[in-house]
């Protein structure tokens, strides 16, 4: 037996999963999800129902380098990822593979140059494009509205910090994202500007920041006016706070 209210909730959940809700309806439903166990339950049911449609599709093995990118993004060491490459996916066309790699390299290089130029002025640690580190600590920053995420990891010796930006995040003109490490009840310590365009960046972590990075630390990101670039205390809007986890195994 269903009530009109139950039907409406059920249909809204179904259309949310299907992706046909208008933006404002989708936003309202997301809000409802935060408060309503019934809404979350309906969502889970419809996710399970509709995802079965995908089982009708013939599986297609992705190129091997996708796994390598995944492994890098989550911090599995490069050689480990190559050794453990799963399955035996169909080889993609070499031209496409080169194009994909070239695109990423070019992006990383150009963005690293921009970030380098910006940070050099403020005598902050310098990000460099690419490079792999074996992580000891890891943290994930996630922006729900856009789906943008950053993976922040530190090396075994704590001397290097790596950021993998998983996409492009739009920063308004005159603003910048600044990353901080906060240990326990201590004050946030400035790390530097957070790269906000897809790419992989590493930097040498100053010794005074290494001691801040631990199991009870948090990574914080604020949106600051660029006019505050010479300061070392947060003054803008706090955008995200992410816990730091110690890597095991």
């Amino acid at each position: 037996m269903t009530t009109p209210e139950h039907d409406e909730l059920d249909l809204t959940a179904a259309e949310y999963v299907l992706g046909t809700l208008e933006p404002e309806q989708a936003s309202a439903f997301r809000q409802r999800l935060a408060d309503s166990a019934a809404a979350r339950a309906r969502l889970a049911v419809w996710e399970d129902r509709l995802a079965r449609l995908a089982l009708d599709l013939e599986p297609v093995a992705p190129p091997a380098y996708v796994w390598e990118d995944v492994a890098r993004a989550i911090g599995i060491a490069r050689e480990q990822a190559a050794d453990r490459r799963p399955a035996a996916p169909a080889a993609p066309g070499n031209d496409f593979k080169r194009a994909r790699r070239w695109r990423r390299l070019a992006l990383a290089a150009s963005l690293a140059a921009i970030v380098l130029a910006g940070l050099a002025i403020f005598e902050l640690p310098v990000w460099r494009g690419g490079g792999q580190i074996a992580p000891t600590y890891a943290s994930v920053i996630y922006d729900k509205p856009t789906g943008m995420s950053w993976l922040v990891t530190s090396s075994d010796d704590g001397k290097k910090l790596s950021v993998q930006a998983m996409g492009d995040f739009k920063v308004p003109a005159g603003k910048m994202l600044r990353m901080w490490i906060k240990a326990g009840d201590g004050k946030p310590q400035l790390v530097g500007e957070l790269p906000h365009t897809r790419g992989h960046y590493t930097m040498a972590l100053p010794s005074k920041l290494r001691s801040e990075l631990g199991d009870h630390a948090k990574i914080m990101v604020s949106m600051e006016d660029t006019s505050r670039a010479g300061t070392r205390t947060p003054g803008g809007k706090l955008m995200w706070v992410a816990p730091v986890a110690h890597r095991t195994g």
Partner: protein
Amino acid sequence: MAEREQLANWLEATARGDEQAFQQLYAATSPQLYALLLRILRSPERAQDALQDAYVRIWQKADTYSPERGAPLTWLLSIARYRALDLLRRRRPEVAMPEEPDRVATLLEDEQSLSPAQENENQQSLAAINACLNQLSDEQRESVLLAYYEGLTHQELSERMDAPLGTVKSWIRRGLLRLRDCLVGGSA
């Protein structure tokens, strides 16, 4: 394709940070997720980017999976599809992956809810959903499938199917209701 229980075990191990289990999960499931992403995004490059993002998210969120949320594979497919819809509507990210619910307890709080696991116990399957789709009118079925496989919005469906917007919305809603009633009632 690995058995449901095996996938659930790998997901559980992934939640504990077991990289090898995550690798096995990827090997077993990525072809199905990639096929869906290719279908929706129609570009190998975009599908590969979405696949990478989806598995990073799976690595991050594996601890929020529980059997009550449905079969492991359908949970993984949902994550991938949300990412694909995000990419399709990058300028209007209205279909962002919702925050994870508080697992089992939240499902049980709602007396009226029928959990995916319960539905699975009723042997709902691909065959069942296909049989139920056949009970929809042609327009209802086509609009639901176009929305699912191509990520079309109401407006895009209206243009593709050359039908008024209100009519398309009605096809979708009535189609979903009939689909639900068929699946829950087991009349397929």
